[in-house]
Structure formats: structure tokens, C-alpha cells
């Protein structure tokens, strides 16, 4: 039986610190609030844009019936073939180049996907002022570093050469 389990049997809480409560602290609540809003917005956009794509209200850049032939290729081959056969852009559509194709039903879906992938950066940005205000330098530094890591990942600067 662990110390905590013994404590539970005797009804005694262990390691209690004065001032602590079982409620989440303000930073955690703020983070959760931003995360929830971003998640709903991202998922909602993803479903809405997918509906536009599937109903054909917005024509796709890649004909849907061609997809079974294309998704068996590696990502590198896929980008090359799609650009050569359908998009005819100066460069393959990797990184953020999908932004130039938002008028196409399939590429419009990337807005919701990117939002889902970006919401964590916004969450960290949201709690950062509180961490500075509290002079919680260690966690402020961690938050800044995390934002740098995620922005770097999102930037497309970190990539594998084809």
C-alpha cells in the first residue's frame, strides 16, 4: 500500500500545502478557454470546407476521381504529379503555397487544418502576459521557447529536401 493510499484510508490528505486548491489555476483556465474556442472554430471550418468540396460548390484543384491513383505515391511524387497534371504552378504546392489556391475546394480545407495546428501557438501566446506579470520567469521562458519551436515547425523553414 502506497503512502497516498494509506493516507486515503485514514482520510488524511497528504503533502497538503497551504493556499492550494483542487481548482485549476487562472492560466490553465485561460489556456483551456482559448484551446476550446480554437478547436471548435478549426473543426467547424474543416467540416464546412469539406462540405463545399464534396458537394462540388467549389471545384477542386485535383479531380476527386484521380485521388485513388495519386495517394499511393510518396508525398514528393504526389506533389510533382499533381502540379504537372493539374495545377501547373511554377513550383510544387508544398509549405504555405496552398494559400494561393483557396478558391479550390480541396485546398480550402487546409484553412481548418492549419487552424487546428495553430491553436496551441495562440494558447501559449495567451498565457504569456500572465506569466510575465507573475514574474514566473522559468515558465515564461518555456512558453517563449515552445512558441519559437512551433512557429519554426509551421514556417516551413524546417523541411526535408526532396
Amino acid at each position, binding site marked *: 500500500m502506497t*503512502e497516498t493510499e494509506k493516507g486515503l484510508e485514514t482520510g488524511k490528505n497528504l503533502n497538503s500545502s497551504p493556499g*492550494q486548491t483542487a481548482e485549476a489555476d487562472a492560466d490553465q483556465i485561460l489556456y483551456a478557454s482559448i484551446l476550446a474556442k480554437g*478547436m471548435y472554430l478549426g*473543426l467547424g471550418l474543416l467540416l464546412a470546407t469539406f462540405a463545399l468540396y464534396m458537394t462540388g460548390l467549389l471545384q477542386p484543384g485535383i479531380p476527386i476521381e484521380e485521388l485513388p491513383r495519386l495517394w499511393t505515391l510518396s508525398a514528393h511524387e504526389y506533389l510533382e504529379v499533381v502540379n504537372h497534371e493539374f495545377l501547373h504552378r511554377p513550383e510544387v504546392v508544398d509549405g504555405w503555397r496552398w494559400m494561393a489556391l483557396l478558391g479550390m475546394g480541396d485546398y480550402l480545407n487546409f484553412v481548418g487544418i492549419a487552424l487546428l495546428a495553430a491553436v496551441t501557438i495562440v494558447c501559449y501566446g495567451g*498565457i504569456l502576459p500572465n506569466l510575465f506579470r507573475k514574474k514566473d520567469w522559468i515558465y515564461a521562458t518555456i512558453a517563449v521557447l515552445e512558441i519559437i*519551436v512551433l512557429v519554426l515547425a509551421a514556417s516551413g523553414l524546417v523541411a*526535408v529536401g526532396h
Partner: protein
Amino acid sequence: MGRFSECTRVFAVLTLVLVITPAALYGAQEPATFMDAGTTAWWVWPLSLFVMTFVMGILAALGGVGGGVLYVPIVSGFFPFHLDFVRGAGLLVALSGALAAGPGFLRMNLASLRLAMPVALIASTCAIFGALVGLSLPTNITQTALGATILGIVVLMIMAKKSTFPDVPESDKLSSILGIYGIYTEASLGQTINWKVHRTLTGLVLFIFIGFAAGMFGLGAGWANVPVLNLTMGVPLKISVGTSKFLLSITDTSAAWIYLNQGCVIPMMVVPSIVGIMGGSFIGVRILRVAKPTFVRWIVIVMLLFAGAKAITKGLGLPFIV
């Protein structure tokens, strides 16, 4: 007993659907032949993906694993999609699940932001390197390594014990400096539980490998997060599960961006997968009230064994029974 037998039948059928349907659709052919076949209507693929992920969502919720760990090996093993796109979709599936669950866990204080932040910084950084390595290696090597990792996860699932309230006599220095401790209300006992952590440095080092594997294979990393948080660092099981789920929203974000920027995301695969697995999880949580979690956990273990073996044989170009 009767209810248990009914559950047994239901899960046997779900498992059969999950494993046999893709094989029946594609006639156990290797991917190279799918390109030439061209006989299957395009809509069969997203529809079958939706059905499969819906079943996966049910089994994942009941088996206590994330969707990503089932998604990547099963879809890459039994569907014709290239591993690049499966890993991209797998990360987005795991990310969506984590984003959906994260706010609730944080608000209920069943996930700890202070515990997650240092861990996430390490895991998300290493996930980027994992993604870059995974996308650089030849597909057959990545597929074989994926199979080996899945079989390792199976061993971990069988061997790893869980501790509801781990014994942490003393906080270590690092966790004290970081202020990692907390209190939560254990509803089943009607008591507040104080928790603290130890072996923080060891835990952080282990998250280097967890992040790397998550990025390399596109797996959600809950299978590794929970044992490290719970058994190594001494975090209570409920906080470990909640923090692990929330952690995926950060770890998988960094890797997802790498896959997204490399063109490894096809919306026609991603959206049916996300909707399917979330819908399945929703149903799974409700079935959990009548199901035997231990039994379902064994079904998940058998499925992972099967998918792991398939990934290895596919990577090595060996024949497989299905």
C-alpha cells in the same frame, strides 16, 4: 454474464470488420497493383476509411488507447495509401482528439499545465526531428521500424503496471524548482488528492524518445506518455491520463506542421478519419458503461500485434496472411 457475451460478440464483429473489410476490398494485393487496378470507385476509399476509423474510435476508447496508435499501423498496413499520407492523417487524427479532450481535462484540473509545459517543450522539439528523419528514410525502412515499434507498444501494454496513486515520498529538486505539484478531486472517493513528482530528469529524458517516435511514425504518444508520467515520475493515474491527452495537442502540433508543409496531407483522407474516429470515440465512451475494459484491451492488443506484424512484413516485402 449474458451482457458480457453480447459484448463479446459485438467486439468480435467490430474486429472482423476492421481487419477483413480492407483486405476484401483490396484483395490482399500490394500497393503497386492498386495503381493499375483502378476498378474501385473513388468514394469507396473515404467511405471505408470512415467506417474503419469509426470502429477504431470505439475500440480505442474502450481499450484505453489513443486513436493514432491504431490508425497508422492499420491504415498503412491494409489500405493502399502511401505511408507519408497515413502518418500525416494519423497525426491530425491524434491532434484533433487531443484538442477536443484537452479543454475539459484542463478545466477539471485532471491535466496539469505546469507538468505538461516542460515535457511538451522537449517532446515537441524531438517530434520535429522524428518527422524529418521519418520523411527522409526509405518507406520500407520506416514501415519496418513502425512495425517493430508497434510490437514494442504491445509488450509495453502487456507488461506495464499502473499505479492509481504512486508513492512519491519526496519531490525532487527539479520538480520543486519547476513547481510541479497539484491537487485534484478524486470523485470516486470524494476526496482531494495532493500529488507531487519525482525522477523528473529521467522522465524528461524519456520524452526525447517519445517525441521522436511520435513524429517519425505519426503516432499519438499516449501509449508512452502515461507509463512515463505515472510509473517514472509518480503522477497519479488520472492526472497522467489527462495530462498525456493534453500533451498530445502540443507534441503532435509540431510534427503535424512538418507533415503539412511537406505535402503529406490529403483532405479526402483526413476529414473522414477525424469524423470517424471522433464519432467512434463518442459511442465507445457510452459502450464503456457495459463493456469489460480488460477484454477489449486484449482485443486492441491482438489488433496491434496483427497490424505490427503486417507493417513489418510489408516493410520487408514478405507475404502476409491477409
